[in-house]
């Protein structure tokens, strides 16, 4: 059972890391931290797959929730200095990792810069559809929003992204 789960996670690992990067604003350290916390939830049974969606959608949903929790903890640490005693050390600083940014080609750097300027929801939906090859309905399930909202974010996000990329090229 655990071996099956590990094998399935291994197959999804690259996609999961890409999604974690997107959820953490392309901060590699934060993405690794979120991915480890997500795997821990899956391996120790705190996040249990009940078969209501595909396993891929489920895993990406767990990563999205874990990234949200990490952001909340980070905000709490900023406001309550003593919270770090209970919550543990911080892994992310919310900025794109410079080493990762240096290895990117110009086109992808432009794409990442443009994505960063979209709203979080638009970025999530576009990433899930174009990067993870999910349908809009699956993207809605991962992001925890309704199908109609996901469609709106998809259309508006695409239009905004095109404009931003055109501006970047000028």
């Amino acid at each position, binding site marked *: 059972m655990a071996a099956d789960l590990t094998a399935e996670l291994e197959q999804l690992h690259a996609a999961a890391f890409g999604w974690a990067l997107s959820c953490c604003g392309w901060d590699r350290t934060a993405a690794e931290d979120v991915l*480890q916390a997500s795997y821990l939830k899956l*391996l120790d049974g705190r996040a249990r797959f009940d078969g209501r969606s595909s396993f891929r959608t489920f895993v990406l949903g767990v990563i999205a929730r874990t990234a949200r929790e990490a952001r909340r903890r980070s905000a709490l640490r900023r406001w309550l200095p003593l919270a770090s005693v*209970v919550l543990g050390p911080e892994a992310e600083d919310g900025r794109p990792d410079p080493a990762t940014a240096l*290895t990117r080609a110009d086109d*992808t750097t432009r794409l990442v810069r443009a994505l960063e300027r979209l709203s979080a929801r638009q970025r999530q939906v576009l990433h899930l559809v174009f990067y993870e090859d999910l349908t809009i309905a699956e993207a809605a399930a991962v992001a925890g929003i309704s199908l109609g909202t996901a469609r709106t974010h998809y259309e508006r996000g695409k239009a905004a992204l095109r404009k931003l990329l055109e501006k970047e090229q000028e």
Partner: protein
Amino acid sequence: MIERDDHQLRKGFEALRREDAACTPPFEATAAAARARQATVPRHRALTLAAAAAVVAVVVVSIWRERDGVRLQIDLATVRWHAPTDFLLKLPGDELLRSVPQLGSRGLDRRTL
């Protein structure tokens, strides 16, 4: 036009995915780090639980003391405070204001008449 644009976006995301895949940490390392965290997570959980238990204990003890009437006794007489300027409020004959004069008695003070 839109389909062509979608195709370009898709190509951009594919390139991004390829670059991310090249810098993805090995699965074994991530899974091992996740398992290693299992040992540290209970410490944080224990600290949180201990803090919550301490708060609950304080609340329970205070409710219990309140219900059983075990209260801290304060002797008000010992804590009455006199201001250094109290003497300014003293009036000559102010004791007459605090006592009821007895009508018909001979010993009435002239000041009460």
